[in-house]
């Protein structure tokens, strides 16, 4: 199996191989385990760089497609491929895993072997979700992700980790089993129309459902995706899971896992169910839920006393922008949503990493315990400021590009949506600045903070790539936009032609 022919398989399974190697190392050799895990994550990132080298922005459809029969009885195949939408998410996932693994070096003391194994397993699961072109395969990976995440939270998490892990698990599980029913309805409809049983999403796109059936499938899929995103009111698992998870868990959760939901909308709901997706009633409901999510997440963030929980709730707000963009159903909205997925991964990932750094030093996340950190950790404070501004959507940083494009798309779809979503930006600045003020500025009030040391070399290595990417996207997003321009245009075109058909 040569690397160039099966690039995606290599990307997908390199973490699994790394996991196997980690498992071979004797449990006592903690440092060796760490080194192996870091090398493994680095290698998997390097392998994924092969995609960067060879990805063609202008090629139509999916690239690097691999197909192998898997379960012919079901019509399920092992079929992988990327387009501009998934390409970016794949890169984000490998990068974030690399950084998460590196960030865990000193914070994970208990059972590091199992920990890194879970983290690498998680990476394979998430990559599988983004790479699958087969609905069945997709579902298998989708579910498989839950297990390592559950353990990451439940073993290495905070005080209420068991509760949080269970809540996360049950909540997302409930959503995804209902989604499975939706997949099956679609699958069966295709089978009864063509006589071919297949989960291939390209083929499923040819299925013509009745509008009512499309709506049914849409809502069923919606539940799975909405819980994952999470959209209001399915978000309550998120603050608990994020707060209790270990740093790397939060980073992966916010950075990559949540994207599975929005990716689901982009990859499946919109292209497969165009007439339900443009249904005025559905769009209204989803847009309103998104806007509520934006404002609600921001408002609740204002009130948090826990540093991490604040960041967690801000995710609800930010992901609200993503779904708002998606259901604006125009090029700007969708494009902005794709970009904002990446942006959120970067800025929130960075914020969680930074919280983790301070948590490792102080073992508390209560905001009131801090204050005046900038006096002791000026570099940390600077990086935190950048992360915060990126999250708050300040121009020249990545967040702005995404949010602005999304809002513009929303405005085109319905000016009122934009009008109601914009206050989210104001509130975003409010809670983040307040957080910054309470933690970084002022005099040091807690004597325990006197001894804090600034970022060390490893921590710099963890944060710098994200900071650089944040600036890159903020200043020159074109390379990113170019990758997904075509697939987004295809989706929009499909929606438009459906619209035109419906008119006729």
């Amino acid at each position, binding site marked *: 199996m040569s690397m160039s022919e099966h690039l995606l398989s290599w990307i997908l399974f390199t973490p699994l191989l790394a996991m196997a190697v980690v498992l071979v190392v004797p449990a006592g050799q903690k440092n060796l385990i760490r080194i192996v895990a870091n090398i493994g994550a680095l290698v998997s990132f390097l392998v994924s760089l092969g995609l960067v080298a060879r990805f063609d922005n202008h090629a139509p459809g999916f690239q690097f497609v691999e197909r192998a029969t898997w379960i012919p009885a079901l019509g399920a195949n092992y079929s992988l491929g990327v387009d501009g939408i998934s390409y970016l998410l794949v890169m984000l996932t490998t990068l974030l895993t690399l950084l998460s693994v590196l960030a865990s070096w000193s914070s994970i003391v208990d059972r590091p072997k199992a920990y890194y194994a879970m983290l690498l397993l998680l990476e394979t699961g998430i990559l599988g979700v983004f790479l699958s072109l087969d609905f069945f395969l997709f579902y298998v990976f989708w579910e498989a992700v839950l297990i390592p995440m559950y353990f990451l939270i439940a073993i290495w998490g905070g005080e209420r980790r068991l509760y949080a892990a269970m809540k996360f698990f049950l909540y997302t599980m409930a959503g995804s089993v209902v989604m499975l029913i939706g997949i099956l309805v679609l699958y069966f409809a295709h089978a009864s129309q063509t006589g071919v049983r297949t989960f291939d999403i390209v083929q499923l796109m040819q299925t013509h459902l009745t509008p009512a059936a499309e709506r049914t499938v849409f809502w069923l899929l919606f539940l799975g995706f909405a819980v994952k995103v999470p959209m209001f009111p399915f978000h309550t698992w998120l603050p608990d899971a994020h707060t209790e998870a270990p740093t790397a868990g939060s980073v992966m959760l916010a950075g990559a896992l949540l994207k599975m939901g929005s990716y689901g909308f982009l990859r499946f709901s919109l292209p497969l169910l165009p007439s339900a997706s443009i249904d005025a009633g559905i769009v209204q409901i989803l847009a309103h839920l998104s806007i509520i999510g934006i404002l609600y997440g921001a408002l609740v963030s204002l009130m948090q006393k826990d540093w991490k929980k604040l960041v967690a709730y801000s995710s609800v707000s930010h992901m609200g922008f993503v779904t708002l963009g998606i259901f604006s159903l125009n090029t700007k909205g969708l494009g902005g949503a794709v970009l904002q997925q990446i942006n959120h991964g970067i800025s929130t990932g960075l914020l969680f990493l930074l919280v983790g750094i301070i948590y490792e030093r102080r073992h508390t996340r209560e905001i009131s315990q801090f204050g005046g950190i900038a006096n002791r950790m000026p570099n940390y404070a600077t990086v935190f400021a950048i992360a915060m501004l990126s999250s708050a959507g300040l121009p020249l940083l990545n967040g702005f590009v995404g949010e602005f494009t999304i809002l513009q798309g929303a405005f085109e779809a319905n000016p009122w949506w934009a009008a109601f979503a914009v206050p989210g930006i*104001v509130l975003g600045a409010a809670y983040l600045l*307040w957080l910054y003020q309470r933690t970084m500025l002022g005099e040091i009030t807690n004597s325990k903070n006197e001894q804090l040391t600034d970022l060390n070399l490893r921590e710099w290595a963890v944060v710098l790539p994200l900071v650089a990417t944040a600036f890159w996207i903020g200043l020159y997003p074109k390379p990113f936009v170019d990758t997904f321009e075509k697939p987004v245009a295809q989706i929009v075109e499909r929606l438009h032609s459906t619209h035109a058909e419906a008119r006729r």
Partner: protein
Amino acid sequence: MVNLIWLIPLIPLGGAAVLLLLGRMLPKSLIKVVAPGTIFAAFLLSLGAVMESGGKPHEVVLYEWLPKVDWGFLLDPLSSVMILIITGIGFLIHVYATGYMDHEGGYYRFFGYLNLFVFFMLILVLANNYVLLFAGWEGVGLASYLLIGFYFNKKSAGDAAKKAFLFNRVGDAGFILGMFCVAALTHGSLAFRDLHGLTAGPLLTAAAALLFLGATGKSAQLPLFVWLPDAMEGPTPVSALIHAATMVTAGVYMVARSSAIYSLAPEVSAAISCIGATTAIMAATIAMVQTDIKRVLAYSTVSQLGFMFMAAGVGAYWVAVFHLMTHAFFKALLFLGAGSVIHGLHGEQDMLKMGGLRSEMPITFWTMAIAALAIAGVPGMAGFFSKDEILFYAYLNFKSVFAVGLITAALTAFYMWRLMFLTFFGEKRTLVHAHESPLVMTAPLIVLALGCGGCSYYAAQLERWLEPVLHSNHSPDIGLKHVLMAASVFAAFTGILLARYFHASTGPLGPLTKLAQHKWYLDDIYDFVFVRGLGMRGGEYLGSFDRRILDGGINGAGLVTRFVSRASIWADTWIVDGLVRIAGFSAMFASLPARIVQTGFVQSYALVIVAAIAAALGLFWVK
């Protein structure tokens, strides 16, 4: 050189990068050279570019940033004026600051931020489209946040910084929506060159109103002006540069830049001049009763910005820019002078503790006097011409605005000279031995004073210079102009005279004093509604709940937001989460019957079997 205009902002950015990243390692003497040096380089480049362009618009596009939005720079007469003001006055203030900040810690950080500010400000004025302008707009807000909060371990500074940023953000929300409206009008383009040939309509009106909302935030107009006086927590050079000469005028610049839109939205324009006039008089009355020297100047700034909007609102955009320019000179000078006084008195800012400093700080006194004359509108000084032009156009278009403007002119003269009298004349009311500031600080004062006197004579040239960009409606009625001029001169001298006699009075406004002293209760209203208000008042009843609200309430998250936020959390725990819990409970609950039947008695099991069969048979009969 015209093609190098993109370098103009980049030079200060380079300075900022060097200072912020390497500053800790650099010797102070080098910082003193680097920081003003970059600005001066930018100034020279600007000067060269402006001279080469000769007033012809020139665009440089670097690359596409967002779809249909470029990193593009536009050098036209309007931005020429702005970049010269920014780099020129910016340079002077930098020089001044090297002296003023000599004893402060974090020297490199301060100048890094200051350079960063200049970078963003130049982006703002050089942008060829709204989005890039907005980027600069937000950037200056950020730099302002950093600079106000420069003394970051001073809590009031942190609060003020945050307040400024948040009030700006409220305006920004309007700005963003305004941009979308514009994009909808121009088929997606947000470049200024595509603004021509628009037609009036509700969308355009909305665009105008929303953009103006942005301007009220940045330029401290009603109802969002309360942040500016608090921003005086920052070091004085910051106040001079950001909160007087440049950033706060960004709103005026933006309105002028959008004159193509505003000229088609008369209702909005009228509203702008009304808001400008109201802000002007309101801020002037507040300025009359302040005792903090910097706060007087802060409210004066708000008031003067009101004048600029008055002009913009009546369609005299070039006048607004003219006043912007003169104001930049005299207000920067005033702030720097005040800074010099504070510096001389080792940080004292209360005017009631000053007095008689004329002899001890002669340069400061004389330069400030020139500026005070200028702002009061004494003939021959910069402010005189620009203010007269404003009043003239207001008279032509909007009589009541004119009336308010005239009164405000008198009030302006009063509070400014009240400041002068309290500070420099009379008895010395402090024990501190004041000293004149060093040359690096006084030299900029002198240059600015010359500017105050000098630049005013080029009004006509400025009008012609700006003609291609800004619509100006000439009025040939020279006679009327002279009458009005006389009226305003009269108002100015009245104000100065009154100040001479009533400067020590605490209630120069009579019944209005209390109102003015409480800043027209605006802060209290915000406080009441958003910050703590109801919570505090209801505190007696609400007991411990109250403490939790106060806990963070003062820090700016308002009661309303706090309330909604609390409600959200409540909903989160009890309604949304509750559903999950109910599911959990109901599972427990539902398992109860199953458990009750599972008694362990074999016969009860048999009974269930029999009952089930009976039910199944019953089903048959029912059917």
